């Protein structure tokens, strides 16, 4: 038998986790309004599907944006041949302008600092390759997107160390938590190379306030470590207090001289709803990082066909303004509908103003305040309520009982059905005097088989993954290899 590498044979891909059960359940039995109304509703996928009508309309009215139309085809040759890793100038310009608009034009972005990558997935990995050596670490506040475990660690060999945030102060990132995490790393002889911030936060749906951003800047500049700001949900902010980007802090006089520590990750997958187009962006204030990341972008460039479409779309100012307004409005409505529906049965969710999901508190439904109980509840929700939601443990949350529930990847009717299922479940579960017949939770066997998937009927992303480790006791993630 011919051997494969350590990277190929370890679990760094993250897919051997039991948290895949929810996805498998959806795959086997996907909800459909007419063909399978009792199927599993996918609420584990952070996708933005609320504004496709606007996009569709734009695409139909702008045939030149596609090189496959008679109107656009005379540009085909030049576009198809262009493989320069700087990217089409019009693409970089339009993305820079779009990022400025999303930030209320309070900051300026230089198109020459825009580097492409294979989605935000590729952007994170590229930055890790540029900023840290194997064995070194990034700090990341919990709870965080499970995909970071793979994206930042798998092929790079770097470690992620948690900055523990708690519900007692709404999961805000405190100076103490940052210093605590850094100190723990020092004691374990692990070199910290950077801090990752996700703003707006996945899974919390909250934005960072100015104080926290400034605290983070002071923290990293004092230690001369990097700051990676993942702002992929920046245009999903739908309510006050609005969005403050690290780019604003970077322009404040107190921090200007530390700008070369700041790197922003962006993508069009969430804000525009284009995950298939693989448009990832690294924006760095550090020339050496821009240069290095640009060379590495050879491994994950954006198709020029897509660069061309995006450039056309994002340079249509009238369309962009209308889209951003309407998207925020619809997200606000959907969020409100969902949280009010939950409140009706006493389910609290973290007060949020952004994102495509809710961070809900199901602590009172747990048998006991443990992650085991959380897992049991989660299996119950998948098997009985037929909803694929994401348990807090997969986000490395330090407290059991929290779940992330996505609400922007479905239409209104499906949302209503999901809510009614939740209502029924909560009422039944909290009814006194009923012997709780605990169903045997089906633990489906984990096998990612090669069988062809029914791709027309559902969309599956492997990105919503979590670490196979269960670290209930120690927040310090141990090195794997």
């Amino acid at each position: 038998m011919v051997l494969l590498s350590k990277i190929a044979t370890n679990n760094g891909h993250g897919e051997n986790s039991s948290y895949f059960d929810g996805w498998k359940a959806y795959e086997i039995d996907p909800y459909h309004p007419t063909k399978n109304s009792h199927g599993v509703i996918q609420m584990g996928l952070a996708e933005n599907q609320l504004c496709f009508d606007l996009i569709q309309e734009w695409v139909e009215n702008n045939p030149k944006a596609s090189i496959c139309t008679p109107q656009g085809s005379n540009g085909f040759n030049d576009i198809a041949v262009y493989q320069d890793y700087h990217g089409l100038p019009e693409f970089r310009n339009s993305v820079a302008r779009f990022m400025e608009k999303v930030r209320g034009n309070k900051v300026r972005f230089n198109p020459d600092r825009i580097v492409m990558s294979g989605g935000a997935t590729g952007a994170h990995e590229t930055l890790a390759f540029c900023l840290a050596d194997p064995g070194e670490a990034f700090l990341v506040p919990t709870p965080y997107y499970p995909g970071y475990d793979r994206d930042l660690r798998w092929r790079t060999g770097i470690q992620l160390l948690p900055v523990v945030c708690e519900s007692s102060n709404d999961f805000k990132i405190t100076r103490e938590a940052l210093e605590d995490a850094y100190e723990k790393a020092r004691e374990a002889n692990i070199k910290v190379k950077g801090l990752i911030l996700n703003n707006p936060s996945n899974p919390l749906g909250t934005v960072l306030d100015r104080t926290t951003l400034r605290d983070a800047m002071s923290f990293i500049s004092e230690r001369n470590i990097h700051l990676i700001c993942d702002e992929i949900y920046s245009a999903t902010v739908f309510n006050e207090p609005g969005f403050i980007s690290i780019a604003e802090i970077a322009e404040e006089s107190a921090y200007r001289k530390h700008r070369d520590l700041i790197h922003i990750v962006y993508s069009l997958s969430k804000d525009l709803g284009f995950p298939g187009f693989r448009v990832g962006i690294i924006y760095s204030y550090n020339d050496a990082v821009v240069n290095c990341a640009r060379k590495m972008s050879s491994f994950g460039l954006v198709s020029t066909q897509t660069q061309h479409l995006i450039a056309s779309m994002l340079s249509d100012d009238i369309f962009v303004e209308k889209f951003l307004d309407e998207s925020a409005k619809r997200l606000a409505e959907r969020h409100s509908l969902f949280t009010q529906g939950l409140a009706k049965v006493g389910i609290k969710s973290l007060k949020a103003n952004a994102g495509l999901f809710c961070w809900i508190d199901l602590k009172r439904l747990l048998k006991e305040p443990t992650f085991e109980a959380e897992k049991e509840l989660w299996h119950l929700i998948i098997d009985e309520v037929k909803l694929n939601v994401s348990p807090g443990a997969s986000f490395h949350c330090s407290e059991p009982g929290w779940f992330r529930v996505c609400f922007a990847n479905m239409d209104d009717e499906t949302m209503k059905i999901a809510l009614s299922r939740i209502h029924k479940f909560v009422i039944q579960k909290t009814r006194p005097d009923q012997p709780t017949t605990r169903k045997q939770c089906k633990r489906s066997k984990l096998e990612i088989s090669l069988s062809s998937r029914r791709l027309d009927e559902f969309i599956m992303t492997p990105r919503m993954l979590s670490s196979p480790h269960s670290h209930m006791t120690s927040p310090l993630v141990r090195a794997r290899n």
Partner: protein
Amino acid sequence: MAIEIEKPAVGLSKVAVSDTHGEYSPYFAGWKAYDENPYDELWNSSGVIQMGLAENQVSFDLLEQYLEKHSEATNWGNRTSGFRDNALFQDYHGLQSFRKAMASFMEQIRGGRAKFNPDRIVITAGATAANELLTFILADPGDALLIPTPYYPGFDRDLRWRTGVKIVPVHCDSSNNFEITPQALDAAYNEAESHNIKVKGVLITNPSNPLGATIKRSTLEEILEFVTRKNIHLVSDEIYSGSTFSGEEFVSVAEVLEARDYKESDRVHIVYSLSKDLGLPGFRVGTIYSYNDKVVTTARRMSSFTLISSQTQQLLASMLSDRTFTENYIKTNRERLKKRHQMIIDGLKNSGIECLKGNAGLFCWMNLSPLLEEPTKESELTLWKSMLHEVKLNISPGSSCHCSDPGWFRVCFANMSEQTLQVALTRIHNFMDRRKAMKSSPDFSSY
């Protein structure tokens, strides 16, 4: 305790500060000269002609014609949800219709002599990503891949930079037309072993870049025997498989495996791309085809870092599943490349320059060793600089391809119009005339 090496103000990784990205090679220096002074038929007829870029522009009209006739199919189809479904599709398996179309296209290129299963196709953003990804999967940092020289300069970056894997060259030389021999393979393997380096695989490019020639069936069989004996992997980079000048001469490793019922095939992996055969480098369409289930699964997971835009998958699924189009394209493309190749070979011959006998690719492997002062790499680079600055042609020196025989150059011919090629040939002709004149001049003093 290691001494701290002085780092810039804020530290980057070792990978970031290393030179393994390879951009200081003369391979790229020539490009800069071109960028600063690019040839244009009308506006800059004395500019540098780019002959260092292996691109295929001879068959673009065929693609354009196809698009004109099929704009709806390629443009998200008729369904109103077409755009939405496509924009949302991020499954790392890739669109099934796209994989089917690629498998079928790869079969057609091989004249139906090998079958490809769409479920073994893993998508990546270009062959650049495919090669790096395979390296991550097949070898650990510090391990090595054996690569026959001369080879594509980009491998130095693609296979080594972020992976930490080494390349150990398998030396091939002009004495036998640069063919790969079992002795050379053994010598390379032993060389690695003597340095305590673990060899994890052999990587061949077939048809070869820069040689512009296909690998013989008997050689493929010897290579397969070698990797089996050593229990290591074989990666066959076949990105020029559709750029052969005849349909018959190219033998893919897939055919050899099929002929032996896929025995020992779980060590074989094929890289393909549409950048060369279809002339679509901007679209970033690469694939890995592996006969090893675990490699397919792992590669697919890793492809998350480098997927093909679903918009592009959609376009190509439509184009490549149209057999009328693909059959005509493959045939016409071959004819035009053959004609272009003949033109440059004849032109060079008229100037007294020989090339390696080639039958594929977008370039020829030109022998200028008779022009060297001394048979050294330095002489070769001196000659290369003359070609660049005096003759204003950007060609690629053999040393940048790790060729052990000095004096060979790769010259691309498919990335320009026939007129431009003619201009290039005229310049070469004049250059050779000038050199002959200098040599026969009585005042000629040796230099």
